[in-house]
C-alpha cells in the first residue's frame, strides 16, 4: 500500500518496485493458484528430499519427521554396511543385467514396429494394429504377472500344457520358478507391455518427414529398404536420441519399459531370487518390511545418485555426438 503512494518515475528503484507490486496484485489469483501447487510440492516432493539425511543418521521411525534432524549422525556407516552386505554382488549384477538387457531389446523394438507400421498402406489395418499394440501399456503389472502365470506356470500354464501335448517336453518347464528364466521373462513381458506405447512417438517422428523426400528417392530408383535406411531412419534420428537419453537416464528404474521394481517384486519368489532380487526390491524389503529405515534410505540414495549422473552424462554425450539432446 505504502509503495503506491510513492512518486512513480520509471527507472528508479521505487518505481520499479511499485510496478512489480502492481503487477503482482493484478496477478494475485494466479499466484494463489500456483502457490497451491508449490505448497503441495514442498510437502510431498521437497520434504522427502530432506529425508535423505536419514541415510547418514541413526533414524528411528518413532522420531517422525523431526527425527530426521534430531537423530544422531552415523556418517557413512550404512553405505559401508551395504557395500559389505553378502548379497551386494548379486544385487548389483541383477540390477545392471536386467537394465542392460531391457535397453538392448526394448529400445529397438518400438523403432522397428514404427517403421513396419509406416510401410502399411491399409490405414484401417495400421490403426487397428496400433490400437491393439498400446493396450497392454494401460494394464497393471499385477495383471501382466497374472497373465504370465496363466501362460507359463508349471501346473496351469497354457504354454507348458501345449508343449507337453505336442510332445516337446515330458515335464513342465519352471518358467516362473527357476533363476534361469527370470531375465528372459522380465525382458519379454516388459517389451510386450510397452513396445506399442513408445511406437506412438516414433510414428509421430516419421510423420514429420517430408513426403517429397520419398518421392525423390523413388524416382532415383531407391527400393523400399533403401528408403527406410536413407530417409526414414535419418528422419527419426532426433527422436531416437531423445528417447535413448531418457532410457539411459532411467535405466536403473527400468528404462522406457518401466518399473524393474514392480516386475522383480511381483515375478520374484524364493526360488528365482538369485536372479530376481535387485537393489530396489532389497531396499524395499529391508526398509518397509524389516523397519531398517536408515539402511534402506542409504541404498535408495546410492541408486538415485547413479541415476541422476546417468541422465546428465547421457544427455551430454548425446549433445556431443548428434547435436540433439533432452535439455
Amino acid at each position, binding site marked *: 500500500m505504502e509503495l503506491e503512494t510513492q512518486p512513480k518515475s520509471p527507472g528508479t528503484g521505487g518505481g520499479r518496485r511499485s510496478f512489480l507490486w502492481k503487477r503482482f496484485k493484478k496477478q494475485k489469483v*494466479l499466484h494463489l493458484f500456483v502457490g497451491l501447487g508449490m505448497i503441495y510440492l514442498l510437502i510431498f516432493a521437497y520434504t522427502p528430499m530432506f529425508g535423505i539425511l536419514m541415510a547418514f543418521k541413526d533414524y528411528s521411525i518413532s522420531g517422525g519427521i523431526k527425527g530426521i534432524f534430531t537423530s544422531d549422525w552415523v556418517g557413512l556407516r550404512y553405505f559401508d554396511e551395504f557395500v559389505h552386505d553378502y548379497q551386494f554382488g548379486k544385487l548389483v549384477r541383477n540390477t545392471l543385467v536386467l537394465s542392460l538387457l531391457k535397453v538392448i531389446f526394448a529400445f529397438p523394438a518400438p523403432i522397428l514396429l514404427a517403421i*513396419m*507400421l509406416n510401410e*502399411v498402406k491399409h490405414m484401417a489395418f495400421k490403426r487397428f494394429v496400433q490400437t491393439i*499394440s498400446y493396450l497392454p501399456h494401460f494394464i497393471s503389472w499385477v495383471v501382466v504377472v497374472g497373465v504370465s502365470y496363466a501362460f507359463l506356470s508349471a501346473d496351469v500354464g497354457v504354454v507348458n500344457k501345449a508343449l507337453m501335448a505336442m510332445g516337446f517336453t515330458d515335464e513342465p518347464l519352471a518358467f516362473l520358478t527357476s533363476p534361469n528364466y527370470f531375465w528372459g521373462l522380465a525382458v519379454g513381458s516388459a517389451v510386450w507391455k510397452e513396445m506399442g506405447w513408445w511406437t506412438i512417438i516414433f510414428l*509421430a517422428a516419421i510423420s514429420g518427414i517430408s513426403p517429397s523426400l520419398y518421392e525423390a528417392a523413388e524416382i532415383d530408383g531407391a527400393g523400399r529398404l533403401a528408403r527406410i535406411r536413407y530417409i526414414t531412419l535419418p528422419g527419426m534420428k532426433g527422436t531416437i536420441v531423445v528417447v535413448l537419453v531418457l532410457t539411459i537416464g532411467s535405466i536403473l528404474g527400468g528404462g522406457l519399459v518401466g518399473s524393474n521394481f514392480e516386475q522383480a517384486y511381483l515375478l520374484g519368489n524364493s526360488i528365482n531370487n538369485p536372479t530376481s532380487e535387485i537393489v530396489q526390491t532389497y531396499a524395499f524389503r529391508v526398509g518397509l518390511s524389516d523397519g531398517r529405515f536408515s539402511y534402506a*534410505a542409504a541404498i535408495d540414495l546410492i541408486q538415485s545418485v547413479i541415476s541422476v549422473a546417468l541422465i546428465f552424462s547421457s544427455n551430454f554425450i548425446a549433445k556431443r555426438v548428434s547435436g540433439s539432446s533432452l535439455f
Partner: protein
Amino acid sequence: MLKSQRQKDFVFDSVIYVVLFIIMLTMLYPFYYVLIASFNKGSDSLLGGVYLWPRNFTLENYRVFMDDPKWVKAFLISVLRTVSGTLLGLLLTSIVAYGLSHRDLLFSKVYFTVIVFAMYFSGGLIPYYVVLRSLGLLNSFAVYIIPSMLSTFFLLIAISFFREIPAELKESAHIDGAGELTIFFRIILPVSTPVLATMALFMGVGQWNSWLDSAYFVQSEELRTLAFRMMEVINKSNSPMDSLAVANSASAGVTSFSLQVTSMVVSIVPIICVYPFLQKYFVHGIMLGSVKG
C-alpha cells in the same frame, strides 16, 4: 526390371504384414485367453487344452466373485479412489497449470525451477513413507488420493496445452469483467477437453492399477483395493510353497486360478471400456509433452 521390383515389393509387404499380424496376436491372445478361462469351470481349466473357447462354460467364477464381500468391497474402493482421485487430481493440476501458463507471470522462473527440480530428484520411498506417516495419512483412504494429486509431468503437459489457447479468448472475457476464476472454469476448462481427457485417462488408469500404496501404506482390510487383492491371489498361487491351486471350499469347481482370471477380467474391462473414448485424445495430448514438430 519393373516386374522384379514389384515382386520384391510384394515379398517385402508380405513379410511386414505377417510380422505385424503375429505381433497383434501376441498382444490380443493373452487377453482373450484370460477371458475364456474366466468363463470355464475352474477345475476343468487345470486339465489344460482350453485354447480357443470355454470347454465347460460356467458363470460360477463370477458368482463366487460377486458373492464374496471382500472382492465387492475391494472393487468399490477401487472405483471410489479412481473417480475421486482423478477428479481432484484434474482440478489441482489444471488450476496450477493455468496459473503457470501465463507467460507474464511474476517469479515464473522460480516456480518452474521448483517444478523441474522435483521432476528429476526425489527423496526415495523411505523418506516419503516417513512424511506420509507424519501427516497421519497412513491407513486412511486419503493416502490413495492426496499424495498423487499433482504430478510434475502432467503439469508440464497441461501448461503447454493452455499456452496454445488464443490469448484473445481470455482478453475479451477480461474486458467483459470476468475474474480469473470465471475465466478458468467457464472458458479455459471447456476448450481444454483434449488435455483434460488425456490426463483423466492416465490418472484414472494409474489410480485403478495401483496396488503398492494399498500394500504398504494401509493395514486396514476395509481399504484394500482390487489390484491389491488380485496381487494377493496371484502371488499366493505363484509362490512355490503353495503352487497347488487351493479350491474354494464354498463352491466346487472354482479354483484360485479361476478366481484369479476372473478378477483380472474385472480389472481389465473398465479400462477397455473407456479406452476407445479417450484414445483419440491421448495421442495428441501425449505429443504435447514430448516431441514437437
